[in-house]
């Protein structure tokens, strides 16, 4: 007997967003299931961050629907986002608060129960204990990334959005962080949408990858088998092929 597929933590249906004449996201639909890490890759300007911003409720879609844990974001944004969290290189936490103060403020915003204990745990997990009274603004970029990830884990999110989470950290730390996130997802309750330009990383952590180009999902599948299925030597090569095809297509329009 087949086991039913795990329920979706994120359902995106026919999502659209235009900026003037430019269709940044053009009818994108996908799901992220519990316990699944989904990679969202594509060239710069493909619409990845626009998609993530719409899921985070900081950008209103031009059309379509976003559902997080069964809650329609457009209907009850606050409840939908209470199950969500994110980390992105372009959204550092306030540099004039210490590591601990940042975690306390965001823990209160997410209504985290037993917040002091949760903060202690995350300080230990993300190796931030010695920086707890250090202002976030003076941390190295790698330490700031770890702080952003600790913040992202505060509310034990059901949906975790990671926009290039390891972009500014060294390979050793990046590996630890990937392992930490994979372990968190292994508990089966959280789904992750992960954008990255690092195809090695996507192959290492993602169960599924979606290629976004000109606001559309042009390719989707298992990152481990997808290159072979499309005659590419690696995911990197497949990325380049898809990006170049999309470029030619755009040029021919």
């Amino acid at each position, binding site marked *: 007997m087949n086991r039913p597929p795990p329920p979706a933590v994120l359902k995106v249906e026919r999502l659209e*967003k235009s*900026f*003037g004449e430019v269709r940044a996201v053009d009818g994108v639909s996908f799901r992220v299931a519990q316990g699944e890490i989904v990679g969202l890759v594509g060239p710069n300007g493909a619409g990845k961050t*626009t998609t993530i*911003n719409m899921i*985070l*409720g*900081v*950008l*209103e879609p031009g059309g379509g629907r976003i559902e997080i844990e069964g809650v329609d974001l457009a209907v009850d*944004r*606050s*409840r939908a*986002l*209470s199950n*969500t969290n*994110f980390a*992105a290189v*372009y*959204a*550092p*936490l*306030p*540099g*004039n*608060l*210490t590591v601990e*103060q940042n975690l*306390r*403020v*965001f823990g*209160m*915003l*997410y*209504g985290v129960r037993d917040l002091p204990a949760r903060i202690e745990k995350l300080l230990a997990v993300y190796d931030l204990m010695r920086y707890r009274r250090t202002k976030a603004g003076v941390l190295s970029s790698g330490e700031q990334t770890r702080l952003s990830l600790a913040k992202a884990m505060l509310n034990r999110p059901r949906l975790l959005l990671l926009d290039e989470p390891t972009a500014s950290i060294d390979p050793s730390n990046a590996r630890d962080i990937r392992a930490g996130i994979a372990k968190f997802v292994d508990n089966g309750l959280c789904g992750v949408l992960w954008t990255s330009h690092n195809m090695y990383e996507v192959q290492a952590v993602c169960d599924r990858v979606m290629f976004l180009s000109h606001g559309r999902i042009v390719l989707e599948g298992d990152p481990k088998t997808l290159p072979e299925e499309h005659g590419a030597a690696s995911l990197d090569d497949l990325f380049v092929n898809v990006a170049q095809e999309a470029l030619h297509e755009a040029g021919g329009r």
Partner: protein
Amino acid sequence: MNLSRVGAIVVRMFYLYRGSPQRVFPIFIFVAIDVLVWGFLTRYLNSVSHAGFNFVPALLGAVLLWDFLTRVMQQITMALFEDVWTRNFLNFFATPLRTSEYLAGLLIVAIITSGLSLVAMLILARAAFGLSFLTYGAPLAPFLMVLFLTGIALGVAASALVLRLGPASEWLIWPIPMLISPFAGVFYPITVLPGWMQAVALILPPAYVFEGMRSVVAGEPAPWDRLAIGAMLALVYLALACLFFFATYRAVIRTGLIARYSAETVT
């Protein structure tokens, strides 16, 4: 409204004030400077005037009450500017935080800090120049309330402008009280103004406070009916300012400006 989320906005500001004398200092220093400058001026005017008119409650009192309104407005916008300067809107508004909760947090911060300013002002004015706000009697409460509500309304409207126009709009915000003061009759009766300025004064709640204050100082009964009009106007402006803030927030979410705030425009 979720109290934990409102509390987070207040706690964030508490952390910033606690670790930063440069934020605490302005709560008191501008008030102290105004008390000293206008205190000595009124003392001088009392010495050269032979009309027996006491300038201390009329002029120094007016300056300090106006200062109170300005402080309330600035404390709200200062709290918002903390998020502008740290580019924190994306972090805050990607949480379950509601706009009303964010606004409530800013208001609580403004109430606490402007309250501290007021206390400092009362102590210094009393100690250095013998001005007691109790001179105004019972109308003092509505005076402060109308000015407080107007300050909040101005602060919320100014915050909406900052949200809509971007970080560079800072310069536009600070002079707002100065632009209003000539019409509000802070230092002189409204009757000395030309007709069109008097018409503008009629829709400004502080004008009712300062007219009322001068009546009380002149020994006339407090104009309660006029103060009630001022209070109602202040409430209307506060409601309009909140609607303006919510509408602006919706607009910056619709356009995506909140996520690209430093760009000031998405076009």
